[in-house]
């Protein structure tokens, strides 16, 4: 078990190293640079700025400098947000994204799995159709439509919840969490439903029925575990994506999270910020994949082989 975790961490480290290298060079291959879109500035000033960020050095030297910084947990300064380091930017935004993302994952899992189970058990009955409708709406209607709609209804018309921002504690969280979880509720409920239906057809479920265990016990002891395995496999990587924020959610609800950096940093050629954000996402993805594998191994004894 410990050896398995150790090996996965080692593999994860290698993956991150490859990610850093690839991102670093691919980004510099793209045309333009951090200051090419700025207002006209004199060549002397540009040269000074470039020098300040070591952009005048050969690329291999910049890379060595960056890696050296990384090893000292220094992600470098942002080229866009002057006076801020990349670490500052991430640490100030991450808590917002993390909180909204965490609750969205919780809500999406609970509601999605419940809807999926109901749909599978009441197949082709009204409850199933209702769950299916929520699924279709959740997937088909984009966040930038459903978000403002929720703001209009719950924020302005009913006045129950703030329209945006982050100043009102849990009340500020409700709408972004709800809107962020909707597409995931949709996806998870579809996944759960189809996997449940498949599991209900398994021969071992028939065996359990033949033992006279009764519907509830058959479901709890024999169906659920197999049915939820694909859901767990999906949730691992999805969690990494959700808790790192969404530019749509953060734009619509004016949340100062880090989701917006994913797009802005690339557009601004903010090299160090792109690197930092990519690294963060990569590390979380690897972390949650290891967690998922451990959880699935705990759930399915057949996966424990070869550890």
């Amino acid at each position, binding site marked *: 078990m410990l050896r398995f975790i150790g090996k996965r961490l080692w593999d994860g480290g290698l993956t991150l190293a490859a990610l850093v290298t690839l991102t670093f060079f691919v980004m510099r291959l793209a045309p333009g640079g951090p200051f090419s879109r700025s207002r006209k500035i004199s060549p002397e000033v540009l040269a000074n700025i470039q020098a300040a960020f070591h952009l005048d050095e050969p690329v291999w030297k910049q890379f060595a400098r960056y890696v050296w910084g990384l090893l000292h947990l220094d992600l470098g300064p942002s080229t866009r947000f002057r006076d801020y380091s990349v670490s500052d930017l991430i640490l100030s935004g991450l808590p917002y994204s993390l909180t909204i993302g965490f609750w969205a994952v919780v809500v999406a899992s609970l509601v999605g799995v419940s809807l999926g189970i109901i749909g599978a058990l009441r197949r082709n009955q009204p409850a199933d159709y209702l769950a299916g409708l929520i699924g279709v709406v959740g997937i088909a209607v984009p966040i930038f439509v459903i978000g403002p709609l929720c703001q209009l209804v719950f924020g302005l018309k009913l006045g129950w919840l703030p329209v945006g921002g982050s100043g009102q504690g849990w009340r500020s969280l409700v709408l972004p969490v709800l809107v962020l979880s909707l597409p995931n509720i949709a996806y998870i409920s579809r996944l759960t439903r189809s996997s449940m239906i498949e599991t209900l057809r*398994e*021969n*071992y479920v*028939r*065996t*359990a*029925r*033949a*033992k*006279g*265990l*009764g*519907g509830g*016990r058959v479901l709890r*002891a*024999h169906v659920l*575990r*197999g049915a939820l395995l694909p859901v767990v496999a999906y949730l691992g990587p999805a969690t990494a994506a959700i808790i790192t924020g969404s530019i749509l959610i953060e734009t619509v609800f004016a949340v100062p999270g880090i989701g917006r950096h994913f797009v802005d940093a690339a557009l601004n050629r903010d090299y160090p910020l792109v690197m930092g954000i990519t690294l963060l996402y990569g590390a979380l993805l690897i972390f949650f994949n290891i967690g998922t594998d451990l959880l699935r191994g705990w*759930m*399915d*004894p*057949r996966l424990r082989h070869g550890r």
Partner: protein
Amino acid sequence: MTAEPLLSLRGLTVDFRLPQGVMRAVDRVSFDLAPGEVLGIVGESGSGKSQILFSLMGLLASNGTVGGQAVFQGQDLLSLRPKELDRVRGTSLSMIFQDPMTSLNPYMRVGDQLAEGLILHKGLSRSAARAEAVAMLDRVRIPDAAARARRYPHEFSGGMRQRVMIAMALLVRPALLLADEPTTALDVTIQAQVLDLMAELAREIGTAIILVTHDLGVVARLCDRVVVLYGGRIMEQGPAEALFEAPAHPYARGLLQATPRLDEALTPRLGTIPGTPRSGGAMLPGCPFEPRCPLRLPVCAQVQPALTARGGTLAACHLEAER
């Protein structure tokens, strides 16, 4: 039948709703089974033999409906409420399935799968149930049963898993065991072993068996009585000895001729039954075997023959009746 039968089927019918219409898989099947008796149901694939067992267990596919009566220990299995059926299935009626590789829950320890029925239906404590499960695994000759009970199904071979299934089915000491081609999925070399084990244990416990198979050799060795099924109908039934000695129905004869025998090694070629088994579709007005029957008469396509007494068996055939 002198004693009260353990199970009495009267006009058992199984229909499946399909996109192209209703398909009758089992057509008015009636037979009795005495306590402790071993009955073989033989027939080709699609003859409806497995569906008889599934209908008794309440395990038909959701598009299946069942008609007729199946009185087991004084109550009609087909009209029980779910709770009552669970009670019967957990205590006096068990089933062993065709495919041992997929019939055990891969996520649950083997011992726990055996024990859960005892805990629920016999009210045993967890530890007492586990002890009984281990004892039963030992009786089906699982080596090192106590340790193996803590293992998962994927750590067992196919033959071992079917032994586990047998242990699970007999653990509650049922009055009747339904075995649906229990060895078809196993290596030929261990088929006999597993079957003998099942029959031996059932005899010790006093459990009657309905054994569905297409292996006549198995029937000859294990069964007291035989039912020959074709197209969902009984073609012939009777004591195994009499039926093997002098099969009255052309289909039963064909089946026997299609079985290799060690004591008649000189037969130049194994007999075959021409044509393919009918699969569903509308019921024929006459005998379902008529299209393939080498001895058919004009009446066979028109009128359904009834089961009538022959030498030592009951057969549904116009031919013998007219002689």
